[in-house]
């Protein structure tokens, strides 16, 4: 298999990328790591007339911190998040999710921003960033804007990003000291899409009650989902077995899985419940340990 013909351009600067996107509109497709786009091109599900490779643009890669924000350059590879072990104890969710994405070879090429913009409903980063309330920094020739992740996914493989915009950064609010999280993924084998993926992030206040809870789900809806009702039910509550079980039920109720070769809808919904429950217990344990 090989892609249909297209014009290829690899600009050396962000300004040039943005100018090309402005002129190219819908016909131009951005290539980051290519781990989703190249398969689509080969299957000819995608037949853009212009592919804009951002691989040579400086400043889109790496993980940094400032102003209480973790800044993940959009072209940062999954493998680089996997190796950012200094995040342990602060953003466990990122470190737990990264090694579960596809397989080691794909993680060496695939990028955080590319995966988010591909907007696969089974994409792991979607659930993770929803749990963390991340924002995407989108640049265009006209300027820049920040898109809260909860307003980003518009449908399967569809986002609210404009055709002339490029995501340059994923901004994750750095949590306080009493924080923990984890990512749970059911997959048939390494490299398969998730049957169910659940991202959990929790922060505790001085009394040990939930001050914040983030729950993101993937592969159980038309987009990655934020289990908002479950999150809100936890705020201010003591992390008791009952409170966690209730949140898990609410998250399962918010999921909209479809039965397929990976399992029935009922089965997947129950996996959401079990994973949210397990994930919250782990997140709380980690938050308590981080504070101790």
């Amino acid at each position, binding site marked *: 298999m*090989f892609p249909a013909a297209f014009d290829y351009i690899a600009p050396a600067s962000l300004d040039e990328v943005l100018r090309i996107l402005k002129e190219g509109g819908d016909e131009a497709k951005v290539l980051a790591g290519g781990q989703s786009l*190249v398969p689509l091109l080969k299957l000819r599900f995608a037949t853009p007339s212009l592919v804009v490779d951002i691989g*040579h643009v400086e400043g889109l890669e790496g993980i940094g911190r400032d102003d209480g924000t973790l800044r993940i350059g959009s072209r940062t590879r999954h493998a680089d998040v996997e190796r950012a072990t200094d995040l342990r104890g602060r953003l466990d969710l990122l470190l737990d999710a990264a090694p579960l994405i596809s397989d080691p070879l794909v993680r060496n090429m695939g990028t955080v921003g590319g995966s988010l913009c591909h907007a696969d409903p089974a994409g792991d980063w979607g659930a993770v960033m929803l749990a963390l309330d991340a924002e995407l920094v989108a640049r265009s020739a006209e300027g820049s804007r920040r898109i809260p992740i909860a307003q980003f996914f518009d449908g399967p493989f569809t986002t609210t990003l404009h055709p002339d915009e490029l995501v340059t950064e994923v901004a994750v609010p750095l949590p306080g000291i009493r924080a923990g999280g984890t990512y749970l993924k059911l997959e048939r084998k390494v490299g398969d899409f998730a049957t169910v993926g659940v991202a959990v992030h929790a922060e505790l206040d001085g009394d040990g009650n939930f001050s914040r809870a983030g729950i993101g789900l993937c592969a159980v809806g038309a987009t990655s989902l934020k289990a908002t009702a479950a999150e809100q039910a936890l705020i201010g509550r003591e992390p008791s077995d009952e409170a966690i079980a209730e949140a898990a039920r609410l998250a399962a109720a918010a999921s909209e899985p479809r039965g397929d070769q990976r399992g029935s809808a009922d089965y997947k919904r129950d996996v959401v419940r079990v994973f949210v429950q397990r994930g919250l217990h782990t997140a709380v344990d980690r938050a308590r340990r981080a504070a101790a």
Partner: protein
Amino acid sequence: MNLSVTVNGTQQSADVEGRTLLVDFIRTRLGLTGTHVGCDTSSCGACTVLLDGRPVKSCTMLAAQAAGRQVTTVEGLADGATLHPVQEAFHTEHGLQCGFCTPGMMMVAAALLERNANPSEEEIRWAISGNICRCTGYMNIVKAIRRAAEQTVEVHSEPVPASGSTAGVS
């Protein structure tokens, strides 16, 4: 477009279409057929090459994405007539049957040992989790990579007799 890329230490320059996949460039244009096309859908890892030292699937990237970078294929593992420790170990432990997945497995193994000279069995299995072998059940592949690690460490300290192979029935 004109593509300039370093393959196994040699600078290569060629006029390619934007849609040319790296694996096709390597096999068809450079004639390096050690890199295999297996599934052609990013599932099996038979096409694994090293891009700036990191293993990647050459069927799932454009040749253009390798521009200005270092590509290593299985042909680049040996140093002249001297096999790479990973190649030696795959031979000694019989880490293959049909051999189709072997180039990809060895590239992953070589990259792993560059980063981690003494990987555990679990770390080895994790590293090869993107590469499928349909013959061996992976046992001898894992053994071979362990042996390559041990040999590399030993070569750096002192030579030992090449007896004591644990190669079993495969």
